[in-house]
């Protein structure tokens, strides 16, 4: 078991290293330099421009040899410093991101866990009713096949533009200031709901199907037959089947994380929800590598942590891994 975690940690370490390096390298290889882009927006007199160019190049630490930049990058990274945003100069990237992250987490966390939980429950439930099964299956598959943004657009159009029940965009109404009042929280929740819903629905479909199929496999397992032969009630058998089916679903969760994050990003964009995704889009449009880099790192770290969490949970719930057999994600 120690070995198990040893390997995992190693993998994570490597992943992190690779990711960070990639993350650092790419901007260096792309055309043009950030400072120029930044100043391009300031229509300065040419003579001024020269001076500024030099000045900002040093501000962003782009005036030292490449290898030194790389080392500095790591150094800064370990100090939790992701550099200064170009687009939002002179804000430090870290603080910009930290302002956005809560929204994303508030969106992603519940969406993932709830859809997973509800999806599994429902899938298991569907697996035992023929008619339900027949309806759930197609619906579920269609749901998983739906592009997040499209579902988002439809919801926004139907419930926001046409019905006007929910706001089209934003984190909270423009006429309120943040406070711990019910009014404000309600307002938040109201803006949160549509993006959440579109994430939830797509996820839900996938999990429901996964669980449905797994349950059916489990019910065909030897232990299920044995219990039945000894006259154990279906309740018991199903309980076992469900519990055992949860394990692969858990692995699935780990595998899905990347995709889910992607989903969150586009959904945020649809609803211009002030989270990471929306930020990334803007960073991209404004060619702000430092911000893009930072955001990417945040995501990497987030996904890594989540993966690790899943691993731990997995080991906790699956005796087989604990016994030292290889297993888990």
């Amino acid at each position, binding site marked *: 078991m120690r070995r198990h975690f040893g390997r995992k940690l190693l993998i994570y370490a490597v992943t992190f290293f690779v990711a960070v390096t990639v993350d650092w390298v790419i901007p260096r290889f792309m055309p043009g330099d950030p400072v120029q882009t930044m100043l391009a927006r300031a229509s300065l007199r040419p003579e001024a421009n020269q001076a500024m160019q030099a000045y900002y190049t040093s501000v962003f630490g782009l005036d030292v040899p490449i290898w030194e930049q790389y080392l500095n990058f790591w150094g800064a990274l370990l100090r939790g410093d992701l550099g200064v945003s170009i687009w939002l100069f002179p804000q430090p990237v870290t603080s910009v991101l930290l302002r956005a992250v809560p929204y994303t987490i508030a969106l992603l966390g519940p969406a993932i866990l709830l859809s997973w939980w509800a999806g599994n429950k429902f899938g298991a439930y569907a697996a035992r009713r023929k008619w339900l099964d027949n309806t759930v299956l197609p619906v579920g598959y269609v749901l998983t096949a739906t592009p997040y943004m499209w579902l988002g657009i439809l919801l926004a159009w139907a419930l926001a533009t046409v019905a006007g029940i929910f706001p089209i965009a934003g984190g909270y109404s423009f006429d309120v200031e943040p406070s711990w009042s019910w009014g404000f929280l309600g307002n938040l929740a109201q803006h949160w709901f549509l993006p959440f819903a579109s994430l939830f629905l797509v996820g839900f479909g996938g999990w429901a199907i996964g669980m449905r199929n797994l349950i059916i496999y489990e019910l065909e397992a*030897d232990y299920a037959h044995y219990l*039945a*032969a000894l*006259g154990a009630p279906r309740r018991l058998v199903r309980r*076992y089947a469900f519990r055992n089916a949860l*394990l692969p679903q858990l692995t699935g969760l780990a595998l899905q994380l990347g995709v889910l994050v992607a989903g969150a990003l586009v959904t945020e964009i649809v609803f211009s929800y002030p989270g990471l995704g929306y930020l990334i889009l803007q960073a991209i449009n404004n060619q702000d590598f430092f911000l893009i880099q930072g955001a990417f790192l945040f995501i990497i770290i987030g996904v890594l942590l989540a993966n690790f969490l899943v691993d731990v949970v997995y080991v906790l719930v699956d005796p*087989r891994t604990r016994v030292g057999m290889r297993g888990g994600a």
Partner: protein
Amino acid sequence: MSLKVDNLKVWYRTLRGDVRALDGVTFGVADGELVGLVGESGCGKSTLGKSLIRLDGRMRHVDGTVELDGKELPIGDDAAMNRFRFKEVSIIPQYAMSAMNPTRRIGKLAAELLESRGVRPAGVREELLRRLELVGLAPEVLDRYPIELSGGMRQRMVMVLSTLLNPSLLIADEVTSALDVSTQKAVAETLVDFRDRDYVKSTIFITHDLSLVYQIADSVVVMYAGRLAEKAPTDALVASPRHPYTRMLLAALPEVGVRYGARRLAGIPGSPPSLLDPPKGCRFRDRCPLAFDRCATQPPLTEVAPDHHVACWKAS
């Protein structure tokens, strides 16, 4: 007579039609009797075993009755059957190795199973421990997960579990096939032991291994193509097999000590008929060296000697 099976017909539903896996099987098992049920694979012996306790999704009870201790078993009715399972009829499945939920501690599994059948686990714990000891398992196994036990240990565990409520009929389905010779012997003896200790009244021991049957069974039932070929006390059957199929089966057995060079192993030429639409009359006809026109009609199961029943025109 603790078990009476009369003209039992159980068919398999398949896309291509009904497979007549059991086509009118009749026999009885006396109290304390340990019956060996033998036959080539696909002859319906496992089906018989299953249908006595639980028909799986594709099986259909077509005709015939099963009576246990004077009560009729509603084998066609899954729900009604529950009353008898585990308590009256129990099974040690072919797949005993993997018969336990991998994610439950064995003790917990047992407890939950018992409770679900309305038995207080505490009440039988003593007995459980005693029997574990009997089969040479330490009490600790109850705190283990199945994965932590060796195949043999798991199998013994299942044997104990299945017989915990002293069923009157135990079906041991191919329990030895997956084991090496020495363990086979041990398992077989355990079955006898259980019978002697009255943990179970009577046992049906399903296998394709005649020699093992010879060692432990009181009587033997030979099945062929969904029908009974011959039933007789073990010695009688081995000494004077009446049904040509039985003879060939016995002939196919290597005798220990005999060099194969001296006496070629006589396999049985041909293969059993398809049970989708089995031929009229005796089903062994096509492979039978003694076959003659009469065989075109199904020979009845007749008692040719005390407790010795054969279904063959030539036999009587």
